[in-house]
C-alpha cells in the first residue's frame, strides 16, 4: 500500500526521507513537502508513517488488490504502539502492544565490560558467554574427518 502525504499537515521535516528503507520518500522542491516518488517500490512497512511527527502520512492499499474504504493508522509512543483499523464496512478495531521495556538510549557499548584476554579471543565463546547461554558450558561435538 503506497503512502501519500497530506499537504496541510506536512512540515517538510525530512524524518520520513531519512527513515524510508526504500529511499522513496522525497521532498518536492516546488512546495517543500514530502511525497512518495516510487509507489511501486513501497513495502507498506509503515516506517515513515510511524516516524512522522505531524501524522501527515497515510496509506492506501495497493490498487491491484485492495478495495477502497479502509484505514490502518498507527500511533507509536516510546513504550507502546496503538493501532486503529477501519474495516470496509465501517467497523473499527483497536489494538495496542508494548514496543520496548526500559529507556531508549540505555543500551551500553560492550566495551564497558572488562577487556577480554588473548586466551578468550582464541576460544569459541562469544561475548558474555557462557553466562548468557544460561547453561554451564558451550556445547560442542567432535569433528568428523573430511
Amino acid at each position, binding site marked *: *500500500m*503506497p503512502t501519500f502525504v497530506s499537504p496541510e499537515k506536512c512540515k517538510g521535516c525530512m524524518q520520513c526521507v*531519512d*527513515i*524510508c*528503507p*526504500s*529511499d522513496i520518500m522525497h521532498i518536492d522542491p516546488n512546495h517543500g513537502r514530502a511525497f512518495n*516518488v516510487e*509507489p*511501486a*517500490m*513501497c*513495502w*507498506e*512497512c*509503515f516506517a515513515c508513517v510511524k*516516524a512522522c511527527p505531524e501524522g501527515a502520512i497515510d*496509506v492506501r*492499499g*495497493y490498487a*491491484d*488488490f*485492495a*478495495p477502497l*474504504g*479502509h484505514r*490502518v493508522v498507527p500511533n507509536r509512543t516510546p513504550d507502546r*504502539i496503538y*493501532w486503529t*483499523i477501519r474495516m*470496509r*464496512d465501517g467497523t473499527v*478495531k483497536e*489494538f495496542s*502492544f*508494548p*514496543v*520496548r*521495556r526500559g529507556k531508549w538510549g*540505555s*543500551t551500553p*557499548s*560492550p*566495551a564497558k*565490560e572488562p577487556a577480554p584476554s588473548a586466551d578468550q579471543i*582464541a576460544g*569459541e565463546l*562469544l*561475548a*558474555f558467554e557462557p553466562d*548468557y*547461554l*544460561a*547453561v554451564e558450558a558451550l*556445547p*560442542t*561435538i567432535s*569433528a568428523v574427518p*573430511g
Partner: protein
Amino acid sequence: MEDGVPSSPTVVDCDLLIVGGGFAGCGAAFEARYWGRDLKIVVVEKAAIERSGAVAQGLSAINCYMGMRWGENRPEDFVRYVRNDLMGLSREDLVYDVARHVDSSVHLFDEWGLPIFTDASGKYIREGRWQVMIHGESYKPIIAEAARAAATQVDEHVLITHLLPSASDPHRIAGAVGFSVRDGTYRIYRARAVIVAAGGASHLFRPRSSGEGWGRTWYPPWSTGSAYALLIRLGAEMTQMENRLVVTRFKDGYGPVGAFFLYLKAVATNAAGENYEVARRPSLRERVGAYADATPLPTCLRNDLMLREILEGRGPILMHTERVIDSPEKETVAWEAFLNMTVGQAVTWAAQGTDPSREPSELILSEPYVLGSHAVCAGAWTSGPADLSPEDYRWGYNRMTTIVGLFGAGDTVGGSAHKFSSGSFTEGRLAAKGAIRFLADHPEPAPVADGTVESLRAAVFAPLVRYLGSRPKVTSGVVHPDLLFPDQALHRLEKIMDEYGGGVGSNYTTNDHLLGRGLAQLGHLKQDLAAVGAADLHQLGRAWELEHRVWTAESVLRHTRFRTETRWPGYYYRADHPKVDDEHWHCFVNSVYDPATGDWRLFTRPVHALI
C-alpha cells in the same frame, strides 16, 4: 557534479568494515567491539539502521531459539531438524554453531528491552518448537541501538557497489566502494577486514502483485542480492544458489502463517474442506519416497502439496482462522502477528472486509526468493568453527569466505539455514569474532590500487553520465533509443527468471533448454546494463541494485542448470529430472566466477553429517 561525477571522494580508513546494518551487521558490530576495544569499526548501510533490512516493520516471533536453559532443545536436535527440512543438504557445522550460541543473543535482546512473551514462571512462551513470541514492533530499533553504541561510526545512506581487492593479491580483501544516495559523494572504504551482511534477494523473479503493488513482495524490495553479487564478482566461492525459497503466505497481503499454524493450530484445507496435506500424502510418497514421511514435513514438500492441489483444480486453499479465533485474546494474537511484521496483511483484511474470526482467508505460494537465513540456504561458502568443522569445511577463520579477510553473515552465508533474525544476528557475532582473530594475525593494511579505485569511480557514476548525455536525443518521457531506466530493465530480469528459471508463471518448473534460453536472455540483459541510465541519485541506487540482482540471478540459473535433479519439489522442478536423486546429488553445488577471465566454474562438494 555537473557532468554526473562528483569532484572529491571521501576516503574512510578502518580496521573492520561491516557492509549492511541489518540483523547480521548489527550483531557483527556489537561483537567486534567486545573483542576489539581499540579498533576502528565502521558500519556502512544504504538506509537508516533503525528500520533497514528485512526487519524494517518489526517481527512477531524470534524463529530460532533453543531454550537450552530449560532443557527444551539441544543444538543437535536443531541440526536434525534443519537437515530434514533442507532435504539433507546443509552445512551442519555452521548450523550447529548458530544453534549453540543463539540463546545468548536472545538473552541479550531480552536485557536490551525487547518484550518477549513469558509465562508466570518467566519462561518464554513458544509459538512452535523453535519460535518464541515477541511484541516485536521495535525489534530492529532495539538491535540498532546496541550496534550504534558499539560501532566507531555508522555511515548511513551509502550504497556499496563493489568490494575492493588488494593490489598485491586479488584474493585478499582491501575494502569497498560506493556512493552516498544523499549527496552523491564517492565513498572509498579501506579496511583490513570486511564482513558482508547485505541481506537476501527479492525481485529476481516476477512477483504475483502487479502495477502499483509491484513492491508487495514477501521479502522486502530493498533486499537486492548485493551480498551475493559483491562476493561473486570478486571471485568468492558460492554454494546452493539454486536453493531458492517459495513461501506459503496469506494471499495478496503476504502475511506469515507461523502464528496461525503453530500457535493457533489452524488447519488449511482445499475448497471442498479437505485436509489435503493428509489426503495427498500417498501420492507425495510415490514421488519423493521416504522424505514424504519425514516429521515435520519439509517446507518445500508442504509447498508441493499445496501447488498440486491448486493445479488439479481444488483451490482456493483456505486457512481456517475462523475455527480457532474463539476469544478476544486470540483475535489480538492474530492481528498482532501482522501489525508487528506485515502491516500490509492487516490492510488487506481491512480493505477486503475480512474478519478472520468469522471467515477463512486464502493462502497462496509466493514467487521465489534467494536468501541464506530461512528455510533455504543460498550464499557464500565459508569456513566453519575450529572445534567443529571437518577439514574440508575449514580453511581459515570462522565465517571467512574463500577471499582472505572477507567474512559473511546472515543471508550472505550459504549452507547455514533456519537462522532467521536471532541466528543471523548470532552469525554476525561469529563472523566478527573470526574477523577479530584475523585482524590480530594480519596487522598490516592491505594495499589498494589507485587505478582500481579510479576506474570504479567512473563505473559507479556511469549511469548518471549516460543519462545526461542521452537527454538531447528525445523530447521527454522515459523511452530512449539506446538507454534503459532501472525499472525497465528490472521488469526484463523478472520476466526472464519467471519464464525460464521457474517462477510463478511457469508453476516453478524449468528444464535444461529453458535454463539455456534464460541464460542467453540474461546475457543480453548483462550487455544492456552498460546502457542503464539514471536521472538522479535515487535512480543511481536503483541502477546498482539492478546490477546486483542480475548477477545473483545468473548464479541462480547456472546452479539450477548444473543440479540435474529436483531436490526440493515445491521450491522448483526440473521437468527433465523430476526425482530427488540421492545417488548422484546428495552434495552441494558450488560455483566460482573468475573476474580475470569472466568464466564460471561449477562443481560439487560433499555433505558431511556431523550428528
